[in-house]
């Protein structure tokens, strides 16, 4: 039983949960299926040796589940069933699979000594010892003073990327405020049903 086997099982579980979430008529069971998919993803993160990623994943799943159940339980509404557009679904699936195949071949052609490296090997540092990820791993402690290499990369080497992420969260929350605000909204807008 290798670790890849467990991860494959969890991915299959996630796909089934996602299909249930899309197909179920009851909103509550759809929310629970989404939560199951998210928790399976966090277990995958743990198996792949990324607790820094699994930790926020579990937290966000718990929050999302509580929030969505709290909202769903207040109304006895079920999602509307509409007839499915088969052509559109087929085109989207085809585009997605072509993209995946293209990514696979592009990663193989980028001089990574014969395709995607095996599971658990760093992608950027596998070719030689001079790879950038090897440099990060060996020099992080003396460069940044952070014992947690992930945080050293996130907030020191790659802090500019983290600034972008923080900006994304900030702007997303700002957009939520704009949609949900009560101050400064016209009187008759209160009659609009909250979604």
């Amino acid at each position, binding site marked *: 039983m290798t670790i890849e086997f467990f991860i494959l099982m969890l991915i299959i579980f996630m796909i089934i949960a996602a299909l249930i979430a899309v197909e179920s008529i009851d909103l509550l069971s759809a929310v629970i299926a989404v939560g199951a998919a998210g928790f399976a993803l966090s277990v995958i993160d743990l198996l792949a040796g990324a607790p820094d990623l699994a930790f926020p994943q579990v937290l966000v799943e718990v929050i999302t589940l509580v929030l969505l159940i709290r909202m769903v339980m*207040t109304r006895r509404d079920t999602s509307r069933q509409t007839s499915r557009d088969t052509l559109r679904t087929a085109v989207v699936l085809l585009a997605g699979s072509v993209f995946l195949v293209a990514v696979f071949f592009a990663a193989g052609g980028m001089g990574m000594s014969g395709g995607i490296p095996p599971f658990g090997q760093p992608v950027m540092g596998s070719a030689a010892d001079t790879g950038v990820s090897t440099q990060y791993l060996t020099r992080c*402690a003396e460069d940044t*003073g*952070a014992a947690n290499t992930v945080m050293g990369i996130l907030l020191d080497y790659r802090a500019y990327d983290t600034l972008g992420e*923080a900006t994304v*969260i900030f702007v997303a*929350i700002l957009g939520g*405020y704009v949609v949900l605000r*009560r101050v400064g909204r016209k009187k008759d807008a209160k009659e609009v049903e909250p979604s």
Partner: protein
Amino acid sequence: MKGMSPIVRSIVGLIAGFVMLYGLYVVSTGHLGPGGGFAGGVIIMAGTVMLILAFGGDKARELMEERRCHVLQGAGALAFLVVALVGLWYGGFFVNFLPTGRVHHLHSGGAIAISDLAIAMSVAAGLIGIFLALIIGCRAAMFKKDK
């Protein structure tokens, strides 16, 4: 929005402090172990959401009104930018301007801890604000519509 039963209230009152303390621990030791600004901020937000759900909306507004959330969120984002700009004075954007200290000690990592704190403040305040807007605002509008 009404609160929950006395059993839930007393349990939440016991637990909430520990949840907040754990959130602060995760934020402040982000450079030593798994965690960091985002995870710690979400834990603090989860503790506050627990309090809001247990004690109801009126109590929540006394604890954390929306205006204060907005101010704290902006202040956190601004603090992160200030860390970046202070680094500019020391030689480049996001240069770690504080001494790195000894590895594996709490006082290490330089500006990483400050950045963690700023991100945690922004994330926690922003998510609490969006929760308040989403739950309390929507439910108030819904009850008004039902009448």
